[in-house]
């Protein structure tokens, strides 16, 4: 591949669309995972769900 020819704009736009949509999807999933992990960790540190109600050591 040296030259994308007369339709280079359409080819690059296609790959750009893939990059933006997939990049957004990956970022969204990873950020959500991190947020849930932190929220769960915070709750468990407070001792939520334990019968004793005491925080985790």
């Amino acid at each position, binding site marked *: *591949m040296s*030259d*994308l*020819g*007369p*339709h*280079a704009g*359409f*080819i690059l*736009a*296609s*790959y750009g*669309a*893939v990059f933006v*949509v*997939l990049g*957004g*999807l*990956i970022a*969204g*999933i*990873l950020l*959500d*995972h991190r947020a*849930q*992990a932190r*929220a*769960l960790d915070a*709750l*468990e540190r*407070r001792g*939520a*769900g334990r019968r004793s*109600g005491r925080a985790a050591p």
Partner: protein
Amino acid sequence: MASLIDLANPTRFMRLSGLLLPWLAGAALLLLAVGFYLAWFVVPADYQQGETIRIMFVHVPAAWLALMFYTMMAVSALGTLVWRHPLADVAQKAAAPIGACFALICLLTGAFWGKPMWGTYWVWDARLTSVLVLLLIYLGIIALRRALDEPSRAGRPVAILTLVGFVNVPIIKFSVDWWNTLHQPASVFRAGGPTIHPSMLWPLLILATGFTLLALALHLVAMRAEIMRRRVRTLTILEAERLDRLALQGVLA
């Protein structure tokens, strides 16, 4: 080897998916790197389409994955309605945005290919229209799920809607055979074997496998996030009840 029943235990699923994820993501990145190198630097320009053949290498895997993820959602819906599988609803919820993104990529890349090849971004062709309907069904399922925020209430109606929408999957697949469409007929999965030259077929299959592994890795991460979200919700409710009890005891003391 873990059975489906074993995986139904969220704790076991979290442990196994945690072990599997790095391998899945690593294999996906390796295959995507090799596939894109071949697609951009090795595959020759097509004799009819010229350089726009490069669009096929992202368009076709996106189309396959949009259909595959909907099929996975339909199987998960059966798991919710018939077997009450604990992780089926989680799997279905996690799959919807991923499938919707691949349907969107399929439509966008198809439009960017269509303009130079057909002279138009869009025609109301049976294949194009049925894929647009697939995207709308995905969005409808996501919207219904968001309208019913309690997971136990949302699972069944979403599963029913998913199964109703599944009728569109064979329509997409066979639309090019049933109707006289502008979109070309199947050229990989067809009776009589693929019609694509091996120099283009192998990079396409490598990229399709890479995208599939990436999508499965994302699905596992999204499922893990959803399991944690439900756990957070349960623990928050339990903590609120405990604080209520303590407050009540304080009042009575």
